[in-house]
């Protein structure tokens, strides 16, 4: 955005102003005006208590995940086997106790958060990218393009997410990259639908026709006029599907096709702990709670964002 002229009206001080100084009242007030939409949405969001709770819980989990290497050293704590200290209940030195190989569960949960969030979020961005392209094209062009793309997506929608991801991993091996691609692809039909619906509601606006009337190409119109106006529903879906993706990772890891031990991941922690569950419940409670709170936080946040961004649901 071009910096506004600092020349100002008659009577403004002629001296060269320092950067970010406003020489006229108008410019001064304009700074506030510009933020008004975002600011208003933020205020509306803050009124939604459960959504704010979701945001806080998720922020804490995200910060913990980012700072995981400083909280517990990977080699010295997270994967260090100490049979003498196995299956200890929660204590001052091991807040969540230790697992069947004597590893500190808290440290493993924290590092597991990093794995889950990283893969969950990247996978969703993969499916978002696919969804924006396919859904955008289907919604914007309509007609045959729409039918072909969406019928293909319907075929994928028939398969359960986990099954589709499972098939991809079984075929290409379970590296982290494959996991991201598998989950990303299995969620992309859903994103395509959401993007398509949003695009269809925007594409008939007169400003889209206006853009066409000044000679803009289709891809420019879609990228610069249509998709930015669909951002609301897309943000909501991203939030909700990140939760789903994290669940899918946990599910795949639980059945042994996701993240492999010794790398800590909530799903594989549950899987390896389940044989000891009856006598040492703490070993599965901790990863279970971690999954529960992450999913809860993302769902609360997503619902709150939906209420904030969709004016039709305003009460």
């Amino acid at each position, binding site marked *: 955005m071009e910096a506004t002229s600092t020349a100002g009206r008659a009577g403004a001080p002629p001296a060269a102003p320092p950067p970010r100084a406003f020489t006229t009242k108008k410019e001064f007030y304009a700074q506030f005006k*510009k933020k008004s939409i975002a600011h208003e949405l933020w205020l509306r969001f803050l009124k939604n208590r459960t959504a704010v709770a979701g945001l806080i819980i998720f922020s804490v989990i995200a910060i913990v995940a980012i700072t995981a290497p400083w909280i517990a050293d990977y080699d010295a704590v997270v994967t260090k086997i100490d049979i003498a200290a196995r299956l200890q209940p929660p204590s001052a030195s091991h807040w969540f106790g230790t697992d069947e190989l004597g590893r500190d569960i808290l440290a493993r949960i924290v590092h597991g958060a990093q794995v889950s969030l990283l893969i969950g979020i990247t996978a969703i961005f993969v499916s978002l990218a696919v969804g924006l392209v396919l859904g955008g094209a289907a919604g914007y062009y309509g007609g045959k393009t729409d039918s072909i793309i969406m019928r293909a997506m319907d075929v994928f929608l028939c398969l359960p997410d986990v099954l589709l991801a499972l098939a991809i991993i079984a075929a290409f091996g379970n590296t982290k990259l494959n996991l991201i691609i598998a989950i990303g692809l299995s969620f992309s039909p859903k994103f395509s639908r959401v993007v398509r619906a949003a695009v269809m509601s925007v594409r008939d606006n007169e400003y889209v026709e206006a853009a066409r009337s000044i000679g803009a190409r289709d891809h420019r119109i879609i990228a610069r006029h249509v998709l930015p106006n669909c951002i609301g529903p897309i943000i909501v879906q991203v939030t909700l599907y990140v939760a789903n993706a994290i669940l899918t990772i946990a599910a795949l890891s639980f059945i042994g096709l996701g993240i492999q031990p010794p790398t800590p991941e909530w799903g594989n922690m549950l899987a390896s702990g389940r044989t000891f569950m009856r006598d040492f419940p703490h070993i599965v409670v901790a990863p279970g709670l971690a999954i529960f709170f992450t999913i809860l936080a993302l769902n609360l946040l997503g619902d709150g964002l939906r209420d904030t961004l969709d004016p039709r649901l305003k009460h």
Partner: protein
Amino acid sequence: MDAQQNMLEIKDLTVEYVVDDEVVHAATEVNITIPAGKTFGLVGETGAGKTTTALSILNLVPTPAGRIVSGEVLVKGQDVLEASPKQLRAMRGNQVAMVFQDPMTSLNPIKTVGEQIAEGVRIHRGVSDKEALGQAKKLLEMVGIPGGRMSEYPHQFSGGMKQRVVIAMALACDPDLLIADEPTTALDVTIQAQVLKLIRELKESSRMAMLMITHDLGIVAQVCDSVGIMYAGRIVECGTLADIFDDLRHPYTRGLFDSLPDIENRRAELKPIPGLIPDPVDLPPGCAFHPRCSYARPECSRDLPPTRWLSDTHHVSCHLYKDTAENMLSA
């Protein structure tokens, strides 16, 4: 006036929409010629086919429903309907620009007005972003908005200012032909006056041709050089401003003028045209206006009225003038 000077020539343009297997006759055998620097007013009721005609000039008739059946649209001699997508893009915004009806919806709510004006410049002039924005600022000032406001969003402008922004967008690449589709319909009268003043000034300062679509004869009187009256997809009467305002011939044109309030005789009752515009899916046979026409004759419901040229500039399509050029409405 040789053909080369005609910015726009529409020849026998027929456009249809196919909706649920029904054919909507949106525009039929429309002929319009606009020389450089002149303004043509296209007048008619809602649904008469004015906007469809305008959209076909940019070859933007919505597909797949819309179909240009026949005819030619020549912009500076080049046939728009035969042009390749690339030629079309190069023409849209650069040679022909359009001002849409409702400024509230024709601006993108999440981009600053400066960016939106600059977009056309960037597409057609291949200049840097900074230059394009500088140009946008000049355009904004030209339409009477302080350049400093270019970094604001559409919702921060009033309706009249938004329409000025839309006009600035249309003028961004200095088009040869400006299509204004009811540019003042969504505005209140004082703002209307401002926008019309701006349009008149632009007209005087450039050689731009203009197609002004409206249903307001007052606007036509203020801005246009010639006028076409459209009814149910056909131009029923066409002439210079003087031809139409002082010597109107078609009963429909008469009806339009009669339905205006008379400022000198405020007690006079308005005389609206009885009935409604016909369903374009099922147009009456013969002259589409005959069910509402008080001059209707038996042949009106049978035959399409012939077009009679009353002078070099004035033509009318009505059975009343089949054998005579005398004004049959004077009685």
